[in-house]
């Protein structure tokens, strides 16, 4: 009997750490960022971010076989710290947020490349167009927080071309680099 209870307890403890846990991306505490960077006149980097988004990811703490992430972005929240520029970016010259108020990334597969490097493959929908992209990512850390929760954080980068998503590239080929940071709180 004691052996049975002990076995059950051990199995219980093991399954807690091994189960695929769902994490909610901590946007309430703003511990996640979707930053972008693009060239200004070939002279400097222009950076900004999307202030409003939400998402979740699944990660069992052991392997990435069943891991996935989904993020929904409010494109109207674009913010490059300049009212007139952001108004222009929201207009139909660029994001056309009136017609496309959201952007979305849904992962299809996450590959562990070793040395802490991850390859997150998935579908990115922007300006109404969906393309398969790869985000080069890594886990930054995970652990308990001082308030009874458990958190895990990842960072990733990728690059997109505006033309790939049906947007005009007025000044020649326009590449936008995305710099992504997410911290999730385990549910």
């Amino acid at each position: 009997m004691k052996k049975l209870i002990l076995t059950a307890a051990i199995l219980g403890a093991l399954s807690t750490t091994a189960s695929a846990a769902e994490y909610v991306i901590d946007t309430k505490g703003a511990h996640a960022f979707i930053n972008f960077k693009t060239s200004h006149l070939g002279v400097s980097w222009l950076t900004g971010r999307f202030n409003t988004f939400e998402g979740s990811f699944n990660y069992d703490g052991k392997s990435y076989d069943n891991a996935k992430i989904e993020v929904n972005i409010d494109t109207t929240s674009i913010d490059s710290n300049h009212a007139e520029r952001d108004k222009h970016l929201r207009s139909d010259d660029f994001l056309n947020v009136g017609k496309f108020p959201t952007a979305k990334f849904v992962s299809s597969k996450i590959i562990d490349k070793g040395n802490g490097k991850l390859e997150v493959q998935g579908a990115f929908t922007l300006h109404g167009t969906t393309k398969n992209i790869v985000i080069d990512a890594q886990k930054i850390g995970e652990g308990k927080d001082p308030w009874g929760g458990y958190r895990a954080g990842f960072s990733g980068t990728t690059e997109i071309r505006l033309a790939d998503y049906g947007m005009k590239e007025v000044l020649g080929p326009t590449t936008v680099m995305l710099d992504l940071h997410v911290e999730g709180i385990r549910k």
Partner: protein
Amino acid sequence: MKNTTQNYGWVAKSLHWMSAVVVIGMFASGWWMVELNYYSDWYRTAPFIHKSVGVLLLLLTLARLCWKASNMSPDAVGNAFEQFMAKAAHTVLYLLIVVICVSGYLISTADGRGIEVFNWFVLPSFGELFSQQADTAGLIHKYSAYGLMGLGLLHALAALKHHFIDKDNTLKRML
């Protein structure tokens, strides 16, 4: 200089025609400049002039309203319906000018930046007063401007009607 029962004084006339020219010019420049792209020499200059003149137009209009409030106006012309419509139209014209200037201000100052009026002074910002301020103020600005052009045209046609059809002094007293 001042208005009489039958005529506008030269202060009122100057303010009226200056406003008319500036308002039409501002509409034309606004209409044109939003189509410019980075390759145009005017891409930065046109909005700079448009915003500078817009601030001055607001000051001109406020001065004009003060002058109007502290002076008599000429007697109204036409039948009761015409007098009511004229008063209503003129009130809306003033209102549209103020709304357009204020909404324009709210577009550019949503990020806390002030508006440079030529190289004379900077009109400070009140910051973002409501969410999506630049876009919302932008829509108000655009549609109010279309409204002002439409009503302004009606206003001009009405003056011509009084002049050529009724043959009264409605137009003459503003010239």
